[in-house]
């Protein structure tokens, strides 16, 4: 019997197939199918969490073939939590898509691509085999290219092409890495690979393979200097697509890096990931402070926040597990903040038809909920007390400051920069006189989404131990290599 969490991939794929078919009957069916599929995927993922917690790991061998020959689907604490985050982002994207204007009206193909991309991202997270990780990465990437390129507008084609060219190169690196790992160890099963790396050690070819793999994964996470695709793709695509790229793709990239570091035991890379995290937070923060388009600001902000997550994940190898747990906690907070900010930007875009900060000055002045949501989001990003970012950054900085005081000071200064660009956006949108008076009304579904996410950000801020314990579970379960190997290989 297959565990419910594994069904989420198939539910999303089936939804992706059924959306265009349903449109032949009624044009209103595709959004309904997309909503239903993402909701079902979320329920299946969240429902499975207690079972994963109880058993430590859940596996399913596709078609009954036993690994390392067969293809296993694997869910442990880390993959379970990331799958839930992807599902949450997916549901929010569909909600945003149905209520907001995009320059290319969301039709059945749009919903089909969103669902297939979500299936790819969930597949990456639940796959226990490197080759299938590559296949699912390709599925999600190709859908992402199409979603960005279908948007109409000035300069979109060029930016979409940049995204495709960079993405193609990075997935080629992953494929090359997969091939070299197979040449070195004769297996692509992650558990078997971890076992063989432990017993044989890293060979010369495996080092090169590992470097290609890691470069591809870092591209997905959009860490500096692999980050260039993010402002291009998010700036060009529709707003819900931007959320999908930042909340979904980046989260998956972080997962892949964490899996490589923790389960495959790529110890030499902890320092690299840590320093790239610091570089990303600085570059992303400064660029966000300078950008003038809301989508670009959010893209740069995401690069900066991913830097914080990697600061924790990489820092866990240098300063102890607590930093890694805080990194996962920060990832959860980052996804919640992304949903809040993108929902507000989507509403602003619906009313004004632009995301240029100077042209929508004072736009949200009349809507208290949007103002409150934006402020909670911005404060959460910066790590102000009583928001999720506070707890995650605090528990990240405390262990790291003893080992790398200078990097921690840099991270603290970037937190201030984060608040500065957040306040700059908030000031422009909510605290200046509007050029034209437009009544902004959020639909009830979006209001509910905003309130729930704001509530979650504040609860995780007031009770940071809750978020930290989730992060701790994820990191501990990813680090328990013997449990992972025994769970998959039997």
């Amino acid at each position, binding site marked *: 019997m297959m565990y419910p969490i594994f069904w989420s991939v198939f539910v999303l794929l089936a939804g992706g197939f059924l959306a265009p078919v349903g449109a032949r009957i009624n044009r209103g069916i595709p959004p309904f199918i997309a909503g239903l599929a993402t909701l079902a995927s979320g329920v299946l993922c969240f429902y499975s969490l207690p079972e994963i917690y109880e058993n430590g790991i859940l596996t399913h061998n596709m078609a009954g073939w036993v690994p390392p020959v067969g293809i296993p689907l694997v869910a442990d604490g880390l993959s379970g939590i990331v799958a839930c985050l992807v599902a949450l982002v997916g549901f929010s994207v569909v909600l945003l898509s149905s209520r907001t204007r995009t320059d290319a009206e969301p039709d059945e193909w749009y919903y089909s691509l969103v669902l297939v991309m979500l299936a790819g991202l969930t597949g990456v997270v639940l796959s226990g085999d490197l080759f299938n990780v590559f296949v699912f990465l390709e599925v999600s990437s190709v859908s992402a290219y199409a979603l960005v390129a279908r948007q109409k507008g000035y300069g979109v084609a060029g930016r979409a092409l940049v995204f495709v060219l*960079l993405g193609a190169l990075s997935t080629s690196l992953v494929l090359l890495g997969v091939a070299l790992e197979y040449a070195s160890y004769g297996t692509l099963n992650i558990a078997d690979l971890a076992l063989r790396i432990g017993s044989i050690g890293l060979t010369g070819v495996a080092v090169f393979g590992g470097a290609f793999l890691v470069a591809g994964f870092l591209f997905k996470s959009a860490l500096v200097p692999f980050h260039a695709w993010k402002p291009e793709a998010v700036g060009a695509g529709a707003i819900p697509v931007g959320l999908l790229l930042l909340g979904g793709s980046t989260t998956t990239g972080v997962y892949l890096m964490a899996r490589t570091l923790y389960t495959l035991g790529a110890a030499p890379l902890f320092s690299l990931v840590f320093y790239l995290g610091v570089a990303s937070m600085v570059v992303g923060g400064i660029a966000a402070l300078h950008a003038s388009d809301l989508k670009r600001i959010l893209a740069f902000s995401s690069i900066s926040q991913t830097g914080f997550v990697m600061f924790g994940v990489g820092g866990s190898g240098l300063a102890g597990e607590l930093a890694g747990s805080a990194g996962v906690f920060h990832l959860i907070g980052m996804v919640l903040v992304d949903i809040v900010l993108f929902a507000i930007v989507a509403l602003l875009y619906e009313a004004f038809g632009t995301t240029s900060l100077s042209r929508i000055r004072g736009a949200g002045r009349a809507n208290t909920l949007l103002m409150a949501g934006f402020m909670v989001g911005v404060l959460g990003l910066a790590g102000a007390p009583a928001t999720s970012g506070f707890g995650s950054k605090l528990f990240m900085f*405390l262990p790291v400051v003893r080992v790398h005081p200078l990097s921690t000071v840099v991270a603290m200064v970037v937190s201030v920069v984060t608040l500065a660009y957040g306040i700059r956006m908030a000031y422009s949108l909510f605290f200046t006189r509007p050029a034209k008076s437009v009544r902004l009304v959020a639909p009830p579904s979006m209001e509910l989404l905003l309130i729930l996410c704001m509530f979650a950000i504040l609860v995780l801020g007031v009770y940071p131990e809750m978020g930290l314990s989730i992060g701790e579970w994820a990191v501990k379960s990813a680090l328990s290599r013997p449990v992972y190997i025994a769970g998959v290989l039997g």
Partner: protein
Amino acid sequence: MEAAVSLEGLRIVIGWTAVLVVLLYLPLQSRVRRTGAYACGLDTKEVEDVDPESMYDPLVHYVMGDIIEEKHDGSVHEYYYWLLAGLLLVLLAMIGGVFL
């Protein structure tokens, strides 16, 4: 131990909140400028003359924000060089970590 951790955390928060207040307060103050003909102190008026979007421009300039923005102008050639540099960095880290 937990109390010590909380105290240290509190110090961090107080420290960066102080920096924050200075950073945010100063640009907001500079947003208002007195303009108009000055005649016996009667015709002056206060106007907002600084775009809120540019309120941190001096800071951005100081930390080379314009150069960073310039480097993200969509040039695929430049992005390829970054990817290559990143790949080399990862390779060096792997080789250094494993063999040295």
